[in-house]
């Protein structure tokens, strides 16, 4: 019993703190990706309400923003 407890403590203390921090970063980026999807949909909604000269450009920027967020997420997975 004492041996098993000691093993558990060893396992807990040997957890790499940076893995937990990495998970935190990945969650943050995931939330950011969800936010970019909402922004892209918001731009579509706005475009339907008022159609102007820059609307097409703003739609492209909103989807580019989403793609950049995805790339940042992939980068985080690779380098962290």
């Amino acid at each position, binding site marked *: 019993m004492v041996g098993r407890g000691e093993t558990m403590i060893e396992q807990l203390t040997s957890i790499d703190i*940076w893995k937990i*921090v990495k998970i935190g*970063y990945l969650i*943050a*980026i995931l939330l*950011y990706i969800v*936010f*970019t999807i*909402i*922004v892209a*949909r*918001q*731009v579509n*909604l*706005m475009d*339907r*309400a*008022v*159609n*102007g*000269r*820059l609307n097409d450009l*703003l739609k492209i*920027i*909103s989807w580019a*923003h989403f793609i*950049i*967020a995805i790339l*940042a997420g992939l*980068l*985080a997975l690779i*380098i*962290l």
Partner: protein
Amino acid sequence: MPDIYTAVTTKPEPKKTAKRETVADRLEKERVDGALKAYLVRPHRVRFETQDKKEKVVLLLRRHWLTNVGWLLTSILMLLSPLILKLVPLLSFLPRRFQIMTLILWYLMTLAFIFEKFLAWYFNVNIITDERIIDIDFYSLGYKEVSEAKIDKVQDVSYITGGGIRSLFNYGDVLIQTAGEKPQLIFEAVPTPQIVAKLLNELILEEEQEKLDGRAR
């Protein structure tokens, strides 16, 4: 018996009346257009959701560009703030890869901030057509409020340019009292509010004239 009186049977020619120039037609010659302007007169390629086929956009108004200075300065500070890390190494406790990722996240948030602020300015518009007044507001992600009133329901138009900055740069609020569901529409921080108020009054008179002539739509 000879005829004493013979009535004229030919129909008189209809009087040719000159086509009345409407406010929209007059402003066609004074067009002010541009992708990033706050005051557009008879703009090209602008349509809104509930616009009728024959309805003409007379004015499209946004908040004066000066109202963007606050968030523009904040954006510049956000873009430049990582330079402070060279003087004060705040992230030195993190491994290098985490420092890079923190910077990337910071710039993504800055990009999101700038984009959201620009969208809020660009799409929050006030539109005056030859038939209606429309106020389109996007308060937050996915929340849209569209208020409109027919010009013949407008009861009073007034404007305010309070404060030194507003007087200097000639922008202010136009308040429109209506007999519609929403008793007051406010065009906030629009350029040349006195011209907007004058145009609205002209449109009101034009609408009244159309009613008298039986041409109202």
